[in-house]
């Protein structure tokens, strides 16, 4: 299990060292902190999407949720002057509610996750655009949310809060996923929903919960993003982010067939994607190649990992054949 994450870590370090060798600024504190900030921004939602992927589902509406929840948050905070704690709470609740709707459609009405969240992708952005009449929302001259701004975009000991928050969430989610009963059920449901039901696991609740967590994390993320970009243009904000999140989760070892994945892997997947984006700029590679680099590295990364896994399994098989061999020598006499 852990071999996968190790491979990813090695890949990240190798890429990091090469980049730093070419341009030492890559390893400068400023750059690393910027990078940490990006990782924090994108990591949260990768964790949420990763959980959904482990159930055997997929969550495509994240980018549109960012647009819709971002618009709502700004509207509450700036136009309705609602006070930041309440605005924040409503935004989070909104994310949870959207997640719950997805979960219920998937579990109760037996719709395919791809379909449900594809409709979400179209609907939420549509609503956001319609609600704002396609105009960019910003903080304008709003005031009174300095605490929130510091929480969401500040730094402590020069470490961005987004990153700190990601680490906290990742730690909690790692315990939930790998140590708790809920986590175990999640893996069980992802592998075989029917068998899980036969084992008395409340599969619908387990799956719905994964979507709710993803929605809530999307809610938090959307506030982080609002403070990062300081504005939300409903038609563009968060476009394609669902793909980044899925890519990070898949790179980190989540299988879209369900039942596989780890929080560490998802976080490392996010790190790799963000390092790639960063190095394009730091090395002065043409921006147009940004996506190409990302695509190529994901492809090669997944491919190499798979080949390594296969070879390892082969080795394991041979080893166990040898072990059987030995065991047999031992028991042959005893059996007679």
């Amino acid at each position: 299990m852990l071999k996968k994450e190790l491979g990813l870590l090695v890949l990240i370090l190798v890429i990091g060292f090469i980049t730093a060798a070419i341009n030492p600024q890559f390893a400068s504190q400023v750059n690393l902190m910027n990078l940490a900030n990006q990782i924090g921004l994108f990591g949260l939602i990768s964790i949420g999407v990763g959980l959904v992927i482990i159930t055997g589902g997929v969550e495509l509406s994240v980018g549109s949720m960012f647009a819709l929840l971002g618009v709502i948050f700004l509207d509450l905070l700036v136009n309705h002057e609602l006070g930041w704690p309440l605005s924040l709470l409503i935004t989070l609740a909104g994310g949870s509610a959207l997640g719950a709707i997805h979960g219920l459609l998937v579990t109760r009405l037996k719709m395919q996750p791809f379909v449900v969240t594809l409709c979400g992708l179209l609907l939420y952005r549509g609503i956001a655009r319609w609600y704002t009449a396609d105009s960019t929302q910003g903080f304008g001259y709003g005031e009174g949310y300095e605490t929130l701004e510091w929480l969401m975009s500040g730094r402590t000991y020069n470490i961005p809060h987004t990153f700190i928050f990601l680490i906290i969430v990742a730690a909690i989610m790692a315990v939930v996923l790998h140590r708790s009963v809920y986590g175990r059920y999640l893996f069980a449901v992802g592998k075989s929903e029917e068998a899980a039901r036969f084992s008395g696991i409340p599969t619908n609740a387990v799956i719905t919960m994964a979507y709710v967590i993803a929605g809530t994390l999307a809610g938090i993320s959307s506030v982080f993003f609002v403070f990062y970009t300081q504005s939300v243009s409903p038609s563009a904000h968060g476009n394609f982010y669902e793909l980044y999140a899925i890519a990070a989760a898949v790179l980190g070892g989540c299988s879209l067939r369900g039942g596989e994945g780890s929080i560490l892997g998802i976080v490392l997947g996010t790190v790799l994607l963000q390092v790639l984006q960063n190095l394009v700029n730091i090395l002065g590679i043409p921006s147009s190649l940004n996506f190409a680099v990302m695509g190529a590295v994901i492809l090669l990364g997944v491919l190499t990992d798979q080949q390594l896994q296969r070879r390892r399994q082969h080795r394991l098989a041979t080893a166990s054949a040898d072990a059987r061999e030995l065991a047999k020598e031992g028991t042959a006499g005893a059996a007679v």
Partner: protein
Amino acid sequence: TVAQEKKTLAFVVNVPADFWQIARRGTEKAQKELPNYNIEFYIPGEMSAAAQKRIMEDLLAKGVAGISISPVNPDNSTEILNQVASKAALFTQDADAPKSNRALYIGTDNVAAGRQAGEQMLKSLPNGGKAMVFVGTMDAANARERLQGIKEAIAGSKIEILDVRTDGGDQTKAKANVEDTLTKYPNIDMLVGLWAYNTPQIYNAVKAAGKEGTLKIVGFDEDQQTLKGISDGAIDATVVQQPYEFGYQSMIYLAKYIEGDRSFIPADKQKIIPTQVIDKSNVKEFSAKVRDLLKK
């Protein structure tokens, strides 16, 4: 129905943006002055020639009387534009398609606007320096023209454009691009934003890096934050267009054109609405004007 007796005029834009909200106010003012017309506003879902073409086709099917459009790919949309021109009155606005049979272009000369920005750059960096340009995508005509204007203006000076970083319309990426630039070139002298959201993101990133005042920023368009940055002194200048006039004038003139009036069409069939440089000196009144326009 009443709506059907009225003639329909359509204002078609290229992509959702705030810029067009101001233009919409212009069309709304025109609507008040043109009670016999029905003015509609179309925003394609994505920035693509295909999406825009289908809107034009649908409008023709609806029997529209006049269209004023900002074509996404002017050079290559001649055919559909001519098709529209053969069945309805056609103006271009914001971006011209000179090869087509459009009756009139109302809008900015983006190369000239670029030149204005270039002059501001020269003013801000009289002794020259290194500059970086940020934009959504370089395959958009206005991005190319603005850059061309800038290059024309700074030709021969000591200002060097290091690179153009694109973000594909993603503002998070736009800000990250600026952050990474500040890391890679800690001593960079100037940042230029070509699209409306680029300048605010430059401003955000520079502020977050604590480099306000140590480098110069020149941008385009009238985003709220851009104007705030100019008031703060963090941004040197922005070159703004007058989208309100695009909206208002193209509707008024379209109606005239449909009624047979050709007198307002100049020989070169271009009505250039001049761009304006906003800097510390005039930002206050301009902000007030914009806020007024955007009021619902």
